């Protein structure tokens, strides 16, 4: 098996060599001077499937530009979000032969992969390229551990509130600016639009709950030196959880079926036109109108309100492009730079409806004043938050501690306090194990 892979690699390389050799006949104007020479080499690149509806043309362009710049080719392999983390872990265990040269890495995975020493620390390269002051702070921070930055922020997204503008106008409702207004609006919607879900409290969606924990002044966990400690049962956090779950348990603005929903099911309900208002990502409006064109022009967005005005923080999620510790890491950095800055970064952001990781590019988007983009951009710049930056938090997420807590409250199996205490205990167990 291995031999066959090597043989295939050799053939590919030979083909690549001849192809580039032919290409070079035209005469290179010599802009390769001082650059990394990659003639005859091929970089393996892992990209997540689903972010861009059709990424093939994009990577064809990137491949052409990269080959022109360095002489090397790229080979893109698409990965599934659901299984990618395990695939990465297996490849890392396998070492240099099995990891890609460059890969899209979810920000919450960076701590885990960095700890295994699989990712290249690019702090100095970023400085050398003069990029360090132009990166969106929250994003740069998400991939920086102990002062070492493990890749370049590529694109990011954030959740705010998406609502049905037409329904709101019909009942003279205004987008909420405080938690009280959110609650009152949802209750009015319940009375006036019995066919719609006023505000889904989805038990399986972690990032629907966290804005309320952060908005009440709570934290998921806090760091003290090297050690992490859960804070999800602090009085502030409990207040946030109480408000959020209360929307379902007391105000009944979210029916029982939503208790086990994840963001996918909320999206399905949007597509069927069954939702009046919900937490949604900056990628949501386009996904909804693509699936249900009847809703075009009927959607609005607003940042998640703070308890008494302002904004509640929302999870700033995104992807890094990181180079892995292979023998082609210099070449890999060239590709990372090419894709995460300037033209290609902007193009990717535009095609995917996400935000670029560079401040200068982000400002350009904000400047367009699109009512379905601006609220998200505002949320991202002013009220973005990250989850605890430790490998343990990835494990906490994978074992569904927060969603488990929310679900046990929604189903009435435990009180808010008991559920939060249990979640805190589960978190601390995982933190302790991973010292």
């Amino acid at each position, binding site marked *: 098996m291995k031999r066959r892979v090597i043989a295939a690699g050799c053939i590919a390389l030979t083909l690549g060599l001849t192809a580039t050799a032919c290409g070079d006949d035209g005469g290179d104007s010599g802009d390769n001077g001082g650059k990394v020479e990659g003639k005859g080499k091929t970089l393996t690149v892992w990209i997540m499937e689903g972010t861009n509806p059709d990424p093939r043309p994009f990577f064809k362009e990137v491949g052409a530009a990269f080959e022109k710049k360095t002489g090397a080719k790229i080979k893109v392999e698409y990965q599934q979000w659901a299984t990618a983390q*395990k695939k990465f*872990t297996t490849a*890392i*265990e*396998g*070492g*240099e032969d099995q*990891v890609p040269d460059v890969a899209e890495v979810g920000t919450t995975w960076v701590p*885990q992969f960095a700890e*295994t*020493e*699989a990712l290249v620390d690019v702090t100095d390269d970023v400085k050398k390229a003069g990029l360090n002051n132009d990166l969106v702070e929250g994003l740069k921070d998400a991939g920086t551990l102990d002062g070492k930055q493990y890749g370049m922020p590529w694109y990011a997204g954030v959740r705010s509130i998406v609502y049905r503008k037409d329904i709101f106008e019909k009942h003279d409702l205004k987008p909420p600016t405080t938690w009280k207004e959110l609650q009152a609006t949802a209750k009015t919607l319940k009375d006036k639009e019995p066919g719609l879900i006023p505000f889904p409290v989805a*038990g*399986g969606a972690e990032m629907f709950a966290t804005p309320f924990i952060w908005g009440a002044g709570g934290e998921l966990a806090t760091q003290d030196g090297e050690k992490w400690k859960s804070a999800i049962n602090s009085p502030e956090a409990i207040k946030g959880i109480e408000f959020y779950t209360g929307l379902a348990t007391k105000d009944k603005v979210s*029916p*029982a*079926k939503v*208790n*086990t*929903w994840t963001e996918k099911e909320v999206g399905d309900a949007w597509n069927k036109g069954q939702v009046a208002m919900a937490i949604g990502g900056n990628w949501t409006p386009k996904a909804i109108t693509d699936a249900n064109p009847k809703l075009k022009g009927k959607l609005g967005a607003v940042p998640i309100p703070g308890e008494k005005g302002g904004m509640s923080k929302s999870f700033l999620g995104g992807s890094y492009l990181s180079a892995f*510790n292979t023998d082609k890491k210099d070449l890999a950095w060239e590709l990372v730079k090419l894709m995460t800055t300037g033209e290609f970064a902007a193009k990717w952001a535009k095609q995917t409806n996400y935000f670029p990781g560079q401040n200068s590019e982000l400002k350009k988007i904000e400047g367009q004043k699109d009512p379905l983009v601006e609220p998200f951009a505002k949320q991202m710049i002013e009220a973005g938050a990250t989850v605890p930056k430790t*490998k343990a938090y990835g*494990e906490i997420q*994978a*074992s*569904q501690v927060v*969603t*488990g807590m929310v*679900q*046990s409250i*929604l*189903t009435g*199996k435990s009180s808010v306090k008991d559920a939060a205490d249990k979640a805190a205990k589960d978190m601390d167990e*995982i933190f302790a*194990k991973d010292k």
Partner: protein
Amino acid sequence: MLVDDGSKAGSSGSSSRRSRPADDGEAARRRKRRTTLTRPWLLLAPSLIVLAGLLLWPLIQVGKLSLQDYKVKFGGGEATFTGFDHYKDLLTGELLWKTVLPNTVFFAFACVGLTVALGTAVALLLNRLGPTWKLICSVSILAAWAMPAVTGTYVWIWLFSPEDGMISQLADSLGLIDAETTNWFTERLPFYAIATINVVHHGFPFVAITVLAGLLTIPKELYEAGEIDGANAWQRFWNITVPTIKPVFLVVTILSTIWDFKVFTQIFLMPGGSGSNPDVYNLGVYSYIEAFAKNDYGAGAAAAVLLTLLLLAITIVYIRTLFRQGEEDL
């Protein structure tokens, strides 16, 4: 090649045999005994090597892993030996005894009972049908069997999905539940009831086909004799059918038990089944969460070893019963 070696050994033996007859006879007998001892193993060797590579080696690795703390590192992980700590944690945890084991065991027994009962009933039905209907019914139950577990699970989730699912709507219109406030996936009993339906639906065709094959071997005369003696259908079933094809029932019961103990897909894919609802953990899901969500490979391996031991115990019972059955028949 093996045969070649054997014949060569035989011919060289016969050439030396001529010189000293008495001694020679002894040597030949010994050689023959050696051949009868080694030849089966030689013939078995290829498949044994494959089995060892595919099953034994991973089994040893899981056993080893369960005694370690394992950390993934670039190019090969680090293992620290921890003795029986993972087993101690597993066996002293409340979760195992109150949730994981009861869920696994009760669910398996419910599934096995229902699968075998339904499968037998269907087999009896098939046995009585005419050729056309037999074909139609066989094809439909084979379709249930051929359905991949993932697809089947999604279909059942969809049917039972709260508020909108067909069965939820039906129950609501009959006044059994209030669809808006009922979510069957959040409680342990309804959750496992749905999983049971799913597993039984997927598992009964195997039982039906196997039992039908057994039914076809029962001589008609037995039933005729029973009828003459005045036995009704119920008595004929328990006094003729069941004793005659008891081995078939044994096989399907014990195989179903093994399969239903290690159900994973059907639980994991259900809402809340992948970890957010600890009430519905079974051994398979628990082991998966420990190993692949918490990256605690040792603890996951320990749970997997526990499941293996449980299955091993069942298999031993299975093999012993089968052998005893064989002796009785002799």
